[in-house]
Each structure stands twice: as structure tokens, then as C-alpha cells.
């Protein structure tokens, strides 16, 4: 039986300033998983990731990566790990190719091996044409992609991404999602922290929500979304309505003459809605969730900080 990609047991972290960032969290991420680690700002996500990649020293607890205890052989564990941090942390005065090649060298790849991998990942992330550009002159989105290429150059079995699409435009974000999905399909385990809950919902199979240093939810994305009691949908109607229609068994409101908001309770389906709309001759052009489904759950799980 294979080891979990990450196994965390009773992990605690207190900073010297007195702040307790982690209050004994336990977590397991299976090999091959696409895992979301969610939480509000200051919840302990970055501290957890910092401990996994050795940038933060833990106070107590156990962490193993693919069965390797980080207290016993951290360097072997780090060989299996690629990290894309939240902040840009490459040498802004180096050329794109040098940033990636240098990182490959740190992982012990020969120059010949590194050149092949650097070319592959820079091309995959659309940066090959920019390889001789000094990295500080790249756009924000390109810098994010450079950090992904750098993290992948040694082909880690586990990729940790801390807010990888922060500040990235929608088109680029979608292309990064496709890239990460493909990478995960090829067998790389991915752990993702993000504030874009739509991103977590689209990409991740399992999720943990961390709040004030504690895990408040740790389940599959499907099971989490099934916990939703109510969902709201906005229907864009083909013809404007002069009066509010009567839709028995549903809670609803007319937002404007051409937009109808309908709330689905537990046990109700979209088929029921369409059936009822057909009965009253209302034709729908398009529809969407009023708010992200995961967002509603997320807000219900974490304590407000303001």
C-alpha cells in the first residue's frame, strides 16, 4: 500500500511573538489527489505550507511526505516537493531561463537534464519566448507562471500552490486551471490554497477548511457541497414578465422583469423548476448560480473576524 502524499498529525505552531498559528491540526492528503486547503486570511494555511516546505519550523507534531518523516530526512522529502508561494520570490534581476535553470541545479539536475525540463515547462506555460527576458519586467501573470515552471522543473510528485492565481486575469486563470488539471491527471498530487472558491470547487476533489489554527471541515468536495440546504439560481428569461408568476412549492422573486431568482430547498431539483416554469409558459434563455455554492458553505464554517 502506498503512503499518503502528506500526513499531518497534531501539528502545532506558536510564534515567538505569542501568536498561535496552528492548534494541533491533523490532515491526510492521498497520493494523486487535488486537494484544497481553504481558510480566511491568518487562518494558518500559509503556516501549514511553510512547515511542509521547511520555511517555518514547527513547534510540535508530526509531518510526513510520501511516508518520509520530515524530522528524520527532510532533504529526501523536499526532493519530492515543488512549491509555488504566494509572493514572488525569485531573483528579479535574473533572466527567466536562469531562474528555472538555477532551481533545477539546486535539485541536482545536470545542465543537460535541466535544459530539457526548463524548455518543456516554459513552453507549457507560455514563457519560452520570454526566456531571455529579465524576470522583473514580466507581467504579474507571467511571474506567477514562472513560479509554477520553476516549481515543476525537477518534476516533483507533490505540488503545493499557495494562491497561484491571485491577481491573474480570468483568461489566464482558466488556462492555468487546465494546466494544473492535466498535471494532476498525469499523477502529480496537488495541494491548493485559494481565495477563489470557484477555483477550489472546479479543480479539487477533497477539501479542508482551516480557521483560527483548527481544521473545521475535512471531507470530499462532493460531500461538502451535498451539505448545502439551499441554492439560489438566477434565470434569464426570454420574455419580460409583467406580473410575478405563481410557482407553487418554490421560494422565488422577480429581480427585474427578465430575471427570476428561485431558491431550491433540500430535495428539490432543477428538473422540478423547469417543469414548473413550462407549466406557466415561461421560457428560459440562460441560468446561473446566484453565488458560488462553496462560498455559502465556507462562510457558514468560519468565524467572522471583523
Amino acid at each position, binding site marked *: 500500500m502506498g503512503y499518503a502524499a502528506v500526513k499531518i498529525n497534531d501539528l502545532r505552531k506558536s*510564534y515567538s511573538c505569542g501568536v498561535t498559528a496552528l492548534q494541533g491540526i491533523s490532515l491526510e492528503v492521498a497520493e494523486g489527489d487535488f486537494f484544497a486547503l481553504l481558510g480566511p486570511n491568518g487562518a494558518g494555511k500559509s503556516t501549514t505550507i*511553510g512547515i511542509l*516546505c*521547511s*520555511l*517555518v*519550523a514547527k513547534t510540535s507534531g508530526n509531518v510526513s511526505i510520501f511516508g518520509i518523516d520530515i524530522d528524520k530526512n*527532510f*532533504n*529526501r522529502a*523536499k*526532493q519530492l*516537493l515543488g*512549491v509555488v*508561494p504566494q*509572493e*514572488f*520570490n*525569485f*531573483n*528579479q*534581476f535574473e533572466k527567466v531561463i*536562469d531562474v528555472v535553470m*538555477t*532551481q533545477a*541545479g*539546486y*535539485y*541536482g*539536475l*545536470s545542465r543537460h537534464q535541466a535544459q530539457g525540463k526548463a524548455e518543456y515547462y516554459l513552453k507549457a506555460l507560455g514563457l519560452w519566448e520570454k526566456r531571455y527576458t529579465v524576470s522583473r519586467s514580466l507581467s504579474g501573470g507571467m511571474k506567477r507562471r514562472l513560479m509554477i515552471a*520553476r516549481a515543476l522543473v525537477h518534476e516533483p510528485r507533490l505540488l503545493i500552490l499557495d494562491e497561484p492565481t491571485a491577481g491573474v486575469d480570468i483568461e489566464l486563470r482558466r488556462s492555468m486551471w487546465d494546466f494544473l488539471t492535466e498535471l494532476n491527471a498525469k499523477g502529480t498530487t496537488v495541494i491548493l490554497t485559494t481565495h477563489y472558491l470557484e477555483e477550489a470547487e472546479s479543480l479539487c476533489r477533497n477539501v479542508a477548511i482551516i480557521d483560527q489554527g483548527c481544521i473545521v471541515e475535512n471531507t470530499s468536495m462532493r460531500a461538502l457541497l451535498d451539505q448545502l440546504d439551499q441554492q439560489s439560481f438566477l434565470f434569464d428569461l426570454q420574455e419580460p414578465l409583467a406580473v410575478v408568476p405563481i410557482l407553487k412549492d418554490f421560494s422565488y422573486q422577480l429581480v427585474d422583469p427578465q430575471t427570476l431568482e428561485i431558491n431550491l430547498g433540500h430535495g428539490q431539483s432543477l428538473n422540478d423548476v423547469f417543469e414548473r416554469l413550462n407549466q406557466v409558459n415561461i421560457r428560459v434563455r440562460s441560468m446561473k448560480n446566484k453565488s458560488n455554492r462553496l462560498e455559502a458553505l465556507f462562510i457558514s464554517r468560519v468565524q467572522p473576524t471583523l
Partner: protein
Amino acid sequence: MYQVTEWIALQTIVVKEVRRFMRIWVQTLIPPGITMILYFVVFGNLIGSRLGQMQGVSYIEYIVPGLVMMSVITNAYSNVASSFFSSKFQKCIEELLVSPIPNSIILLGYVLGGVFRGALVGMTIMVLSLFFVQFTPNDLIMTFLVLFLTASLFAMGGFINALFAKKFDDISIVPTFILAPLTYLGGVFYSIDLFDPFWRTLSLFNPIVYMVNAFRYGLLGITDVNIGYALAMILIFNLLLFLSAMVLLHKGVGVKH
């Protein structure tokens, strides 16, 4: 025993460090050359010609080894201090910390970068000095041994300084308030035998005295201190700073939260 991957990592750090100081050669390699030419002209030629001989050689010949050492010390120290602190400041030190490189390789890589710059500048100054004075090295092995050991000692000093530094001011305090006085009072321009016994004894607590004298012995065959003792001191200081840097790195001082 280090594995191939660790040698590649070491090579990567050294190449990166050398590439860094070569890229900014106008800031790193030219200024020490100009400064030392001015020393040779003003102190060596203009003033030195009126001073006569010092321990059997002309004054300009006497100060050449000290000035070379001064350049080696300053450049080896500042190379590592500024490079490592800049990495901390830009957070690109995290690239190193998340990768599977042993602390000893990180330290060795940065120190070798500092040694290369210190040695390159030192040898350039030696070549430049030949335009002002002719001499034949007394002991080439001793000359280069002291040059490299001094460079490594101060490169490690720069590394430790950068570990503790929180802002750019912190990496200029030690060179300005500690290194410069110790270097000027380390027998660069004079023999400590000129002092009365109290000041001579006090001077022996200055580690730079041993480096300057050992290097002067290598170049000119002149020294104020026992050569074996001087070499032992340089080696002991190297060992002490290496162990200190390793302990600090292991504890994550200045680099880990």
C-alpha cells in the same frame, strides 16, 4: 560523503554567485582597483619615498601585501553579506531553503563565491602593484594559502552578518565600525614592532595582524609574528566561524520563522 546531486547544487550556487558579481563588475571589481592605485600613488610613491625603508624594503613594497589583504577582506566580506542579504530581502533565499540542499553546501557555495571575488580582486591588486614596485614572491604557496584562507574567513563573517541582518544598514555596520578599524590597525601600513610593548601586545589580539603578516611573509619574507602561529590562528578563526555559521543555519536564525 556528498552525492553528485549535492555537488551540482554547490556548483549552481557558486556559478550564480560569480555571475552576480561579474554582472555588476563596475560596482564590484573596478572600485577596489582604483582605490588601491590611489594608495600606491599617494602613500607608496609620494609619502613613502620620503619615509625611507621599513624592515629592509621600500615603504611602497612594505604596504603592498597589507593593501592586497585589505581588498581581499573587504571584498570577500561584502560579497557574501550583500548577496545573501539581498536574497533574504527579495525572498529568493526561499528557493534554496525549500530545495534539498544541506546547510553545509549552502554555506560553502556562498563562501566560495566570496572567495572567488576576494581572490580575483586580490590578484588584480597584486598585478597593479607591479606598475609601482618590482618584487619576487618569497613563498608562492604561503601567499596563495593565506589569500584563500583570509578570503574564506571573511566570507563566512559576511554570511553570519547577513543571517542576522534585518535591513541594509545592518550589513554596513560591521564593515564600517569593526572591519575598517581592525584592518587599518592590523599592520597594513606599519610594523607592530614600532609600538611599545603594551600596544604591541594589544595588537596581537587583532586577528587581521596575523593575516597581513602571514601574507607579507609569503610575498616579501618579512613578518612581525611567528608564521606557524599566524597560520594556526587563521585556521582556528576559519573553523570557529564555520561552526558558528552552521549552528545558526541549523537553527534557522534569520531565515526561518
